[in-house]
């Protein structure tokens, strides 16, 4: 099976800034692939390299095996859902959705019929006559999705598509995008800075940092076995322990990570320290225990007794949960 998107040592430099630096990447056909990273890490530039709005400084990009270095955006079988949706304000919803077919020269009747199908797909039947300005943020997002899907792209790119939505709507759209992707079987490439979004939606993900891919793998793999301190910290805000502390906890003299939910209060345990912060999260508490000058966060499920700030607390963990990282 050919891969949908393939990067071979792709770099994109803006002057001295290395937005994307020697990235190798393979996205399998039919995957729901997430690019995760803080802002400025190069994930959006990677997306724009796929769509063709950025040209690589060096390296090669292949889409379904074909080198696209000489192919402009409008000739790529790739469509994008833009972060600000970029709906055309002077057209109604139907014309927005049918735009891709219109520029290909499809006649009005079949074009509108297909636009209506797409609107039904995103549960916006009957909204065709409205202008984008008359829609809510969630509805605009769906129109942008329908507009990108009408061309039947082989790869759909989504640039932080849920960033502007409120929590409830975001969760509903996450499920919907996921089921839509399953139904259509199209490769989705999804850019986000929200690690929980990436973990819950993607089949595989790449974690970006400073223009490079820090780690690539399945969500469980990345969550349980972060390769670097950055990944451990960024994905799921893990406790990152310096070599000395790792050693005192029974590990080798290397950096390690320990998930907050792997730590439990106990009468005896390897970690004893002062409670310096307590935060209520709804589904439990997050307690920060300071020991040997190091803050360690632990997750206390609701029902557990909550300690007082300033009191002493002892924590224990399953030794298997201590993940030792080879890279610093």
């Amino acid at each position: 099976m050919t891969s949908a998107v393939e990067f071979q040592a792709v770099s994109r430099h803006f002057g001295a800034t290395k937005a994307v630096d020697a990235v190798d990447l393979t996205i399998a056909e039919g995957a729901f692939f997430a690019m995760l990273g803080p802002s400025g890490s190069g994930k959006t530039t990677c997306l724009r390299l796929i769509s063709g709005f950025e040209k690589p400084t060096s390296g090669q990009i292949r889409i379904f095996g074909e080198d696209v270095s000489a192919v402009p955006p409008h000739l790529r079988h790739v469509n994008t859902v833009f972060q600000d949706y970029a709906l055309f304000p002077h057209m109604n919803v139907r014309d927005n959705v049918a735009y891709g077919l219109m520029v290909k020269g499809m006649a009005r009747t079949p074009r509108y019929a297909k636009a209506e199908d797409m609107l039904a797909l995103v549960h916006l039947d009957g909204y065709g006559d409205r202008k984008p300005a008359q829609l809510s943020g969630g509805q605009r997002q769906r129109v942008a999705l329908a507009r990108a899907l009408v061309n039947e792209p082989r790869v759909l790119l989504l640039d932080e598509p849920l960033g502007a939505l409120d929590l409830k709507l975001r969760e509903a759209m996450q499920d919907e995008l996921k089921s839509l992707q399953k139904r259509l079987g199209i490769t989705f490439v999804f850019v986000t800075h929200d690690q929980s979004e990436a973990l819950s939606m993607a089949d595989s993900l790449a974690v970006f940092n400073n223009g490079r891919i820090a780690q690539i793998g399945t969500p469980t793999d990345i969550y349980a076995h972060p390769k670097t301190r950055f990944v451990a910290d960024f994905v799921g805000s893990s406790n990152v322990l310096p070599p000395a502390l790792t050693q005192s906890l029974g590990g080798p003299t290397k950096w390690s990570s320990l998930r907050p939910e792997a730590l439990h209060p106990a009468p005896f345990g390897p970690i004893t320290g002062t409670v310096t912060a307590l935060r209520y999260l709804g589904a439990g508490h997050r307690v920060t225990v300071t020991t040997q000058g190091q803050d360690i966060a632990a997750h206390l499920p609701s029902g557990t007794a909550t300690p007082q700030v300033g009191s002493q607390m002892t924590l224990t963990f399953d030794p298997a949960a201590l993940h030792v990282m080879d890279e610093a």
Partner: protein
Amino acid sequence: MTAPAIIPPRGLADRLTTLFWRHPRLLLSLLIAPPLLWLGVVYLGSLAALLLQSFYSIDEFSGLIVHEFTLKTYGELLRPSNADVILRTLGMAIAVTIASAFIAFPIAYFAARYAKGRWKAAFYLGIMLPLWSSYLVKVYAWKLILAKEGILTWATEATHTSWLLNAALSLPGVGGNSLSTSYIGTFLTFTYVWLPFMILPMQASLERVPNSMLEAAADLGATARQTFRTVVLPLAMPGIVAGSIFTFSLTLGDYIIPQIIGTSASFIGMAVYQLQGTAGNIPLAAAFAVVPIVIMLIYLSLAKRAGAFDAL
């Protein structure tokens, strides 16, 4: 001791602020009353007086104004010599507007999409600088440029392109003895003088088109040409219409440029100037002055019907 929850007013300013805060409309009406009075009385009032004058007529023997309602003066506008003036002015205004739009668009597009920092400052300076110098100086400068002994003739001779100039001058209707005494000269000067008024609103409207909108069009398969026609142009249309209102109405009303540059043929502005000055025919001058207003109203309603303001 804790501070009181409410700070006592410290004088007239606080009391006034409180009053305006409780009655926001009061402040608004105070702010808007003077300009509204100016607009209503001085501006619209004189326009109404003008309209009223145009319904009077002049007694052909005594030369006195007959203060009776009549459409006779408007009928006079249709006389061939007067209708000529109107059509000539209208044709010139249309030509100047179209030429300005074509010249202004690339400049405005560059300024809105590509110019940053210093380049943007240079753009604004370049557009505005000509507006700071006297209008008359610019017109006379153009007379010198376009004159038979002027720099343009000299330049065409030096580059062996005189035949081009001569071909333009031999065009029937718009040509003439030299550029400064032909319609082409009038047209060039008008286009030069009004161009900034087309560029600035166009640039403002293009600046409001986000880059992602153009990328979205390309992403969906539109060629550069299709993107221009279906996205850029409709979104820039309010700016183009605003600019064309300036170039169109300024050309319709101007009486100095056609007097200095071009044939001796009359334009609406010149006709108004002569009728109310030397001829003392205020009613006909008023009727002439109403013509640009009517033309602009027709133009705007056509533009609205064509959807030029849909993107507003």
